[in-house]
């Protein structure tokens, strides 16, 4: 259905999003060629695209709240790190086990808590995040506490490993793209419609035969899967992990990305992750005022695009229709 001609027609009608994506692709290409520190920033951005896109399925589509998805990233990331760095496992099976472990944990935690509504669910997820963080700090025999684990090998299969910064960037962007495309597929499917229906009205969804508790759990598991993948990608891309990587800061950052990008939209999560990851680099020139500048930019975005950056294209359409 999405042939090139329909994409072109769409772009002529509303050029905002295509322009934004062209800009993003240009930026990535520029960093790829020039290299340097910005490559590490883009690594970080791509990993967060995966994490935030997953969180968006649970929070944006299904309309639930979770402060605890960092827990699933931590479980999978630490499993990867411990098994590869301390026990000599191959990265791929270690990451696979980490992701399955995180999913199992999400199932055990999600099954009872998703019967809770609103604030109660938020509190329960916050607790999960804090518990996993404390375990990472205290279980020193395995996690080495605040010291963290270093010497984690990069991703790869057998002799073929992804070691150079540029190759890692390509791999991470591939993961990010697959993640965004899959989220788009979900949004347009029967499953995604059921998620958004639950966000709109749980009662109406039930009256149409949607098993609300079951669908909330499915959304929770899908987003936990994204979080777990992001968690493992991080340790193999950076080669180091410590509890702070998956601390409460991760939640705050992901929320900022989600709201700045546009919660509930397919592109918004990815856009927010990219913009928020790059923002500190952009405002760095203000030296001691950089935190102030960072905050000012966030406030400006939320004043002029309260639906997030992805809503700018809707504003464009509205303005055109109004004119």
């Amino acid at each position: 259905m999405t042939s090139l001609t329909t994409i072109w027609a769409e772009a002529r009608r509303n050029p905002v999003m295509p322009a934004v994506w062209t800009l993003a692709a240009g930026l990535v290409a520029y960093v790829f060629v020039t290299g340097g520190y910005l490559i590490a920033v883009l690594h970080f951005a791509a990993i967060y695209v995966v994490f935030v896109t997953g969180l968006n399925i649970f929070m944006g589509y299904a309309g639930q709240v979770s402060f605890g998805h960092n827990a699933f990233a931590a479980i999978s990331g630490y499993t990867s790190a411990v098994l590869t760095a301390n026990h000599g496992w191959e990265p791929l099976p270690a990451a696979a086990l980490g992701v399955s472990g995180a999913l199992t944990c999400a199932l055990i935690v999600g099954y009872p808590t998703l019967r809770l509504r609103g604030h109660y669910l938020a509190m329960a997820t916050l607790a999960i995040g804090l518990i996993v963080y404390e375990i990472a700090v205290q279980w020193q025999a395995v996690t080495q506490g605040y010291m963290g684990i270093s010497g984690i090998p990069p991703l790869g299969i057998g002799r073929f490993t992804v070691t150079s910064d540029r190759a890692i960037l390509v791999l991470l962007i591939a993961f990010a793209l697959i993640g965004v495309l899959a989220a788009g597929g979900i949004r347009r499917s029967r499953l995604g419609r059921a998620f958004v229906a639950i966000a709109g009205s749980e009662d109406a969804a039930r009256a149409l035969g949607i098993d609300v508790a079951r669908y909330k759990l499915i959304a929770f598991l899908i987003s936990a899967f994204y979080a777990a993948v992001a968690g493992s990608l991080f340790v193999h891309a950076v080669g180091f992990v410590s509890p702070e990587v998956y601390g409460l800061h991760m939640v705050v950052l992901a929320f900022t990305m989600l709201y700045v990008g546009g919660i509930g939209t397919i592109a918004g999560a990815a856009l927010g992750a990219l913009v928020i990851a790059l923002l500190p680099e952009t405002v760095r020139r203000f030296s001691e005022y950089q935190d102030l500048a960072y905050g000012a930019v966030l406030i400006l975005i939320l004043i002029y695009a309260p639906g997030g950056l992805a809503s700018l294209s809707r504003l464009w359409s509205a303005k055109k229709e109004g004119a």
Partner: protein
Amino acid sequence: MTLLRLDAVTRRFGGLVAVDNVSLEIARSGVTAIIGPNGAGKTTLFNVISGFIAPSAGHVEFAGDDITGLAAEEIAKRGLVRTFQLVQLFENLTVLENVKVGRHLHTKGGLGSALLPHRARTIEAGVETFARDLLNKVGLDAHADTLAGVLPYGQKRLLEIARALAAEPKLLMLDEPAAGLNRGETTRLADLIRRIVTLGVTVLLIEHDMSFVMNIADRLAVLDFGKLIASGTPAEVQRNPDVIAAYLGTMEAAHA
């Protein structure tokens, strides 16, 4: 033939008996309206029938099966679909997508078909055709791609009914469908309900607008203080002295 049978259904909230020992049979055809003054227990009765609250006592039988205490989604699966007194749309979905959600029970597809859309292409195409056809029937086809949240109120009501119809119910329960509609919209709603009935769907509705009810209902059931005080054709009910005393008299006065 009876489609819905209520057998001594009672619902208490603490000391209040909201629905008191109501027994009622709804035949498999036409429009039945439940009327009664505010606080008579109509919406509570609706909630009990549709599984949103459990009865304190009594039984609900639908299409020959005991559905007492089943979850709302289970009851929907059996072909009993309701709307709400305060319109409950999926505001972040488009008008078309809202109706597509109504097809949920008649389609399959989870994560697999979400990630590999070509596998669900025929199903999705069927859903699309069905949904557009329904929007056409209720006159919302021009707004198919509008977000449901921005529709004017009257069209929201229509959309909620279209979405319920997408589930192909045997029994459609409408909680005050004409509330807040202007005269023209009410007339179109009556036409729509008539057409729904000719499709073989039984309609059970709660309504306050008496001229609307008298115009559209084949049978009436009258609740007062949770008790069923009368039932029958509109003409029979209008002659019933209990009803005149409890309800119609005061309502006529209020409308004058």
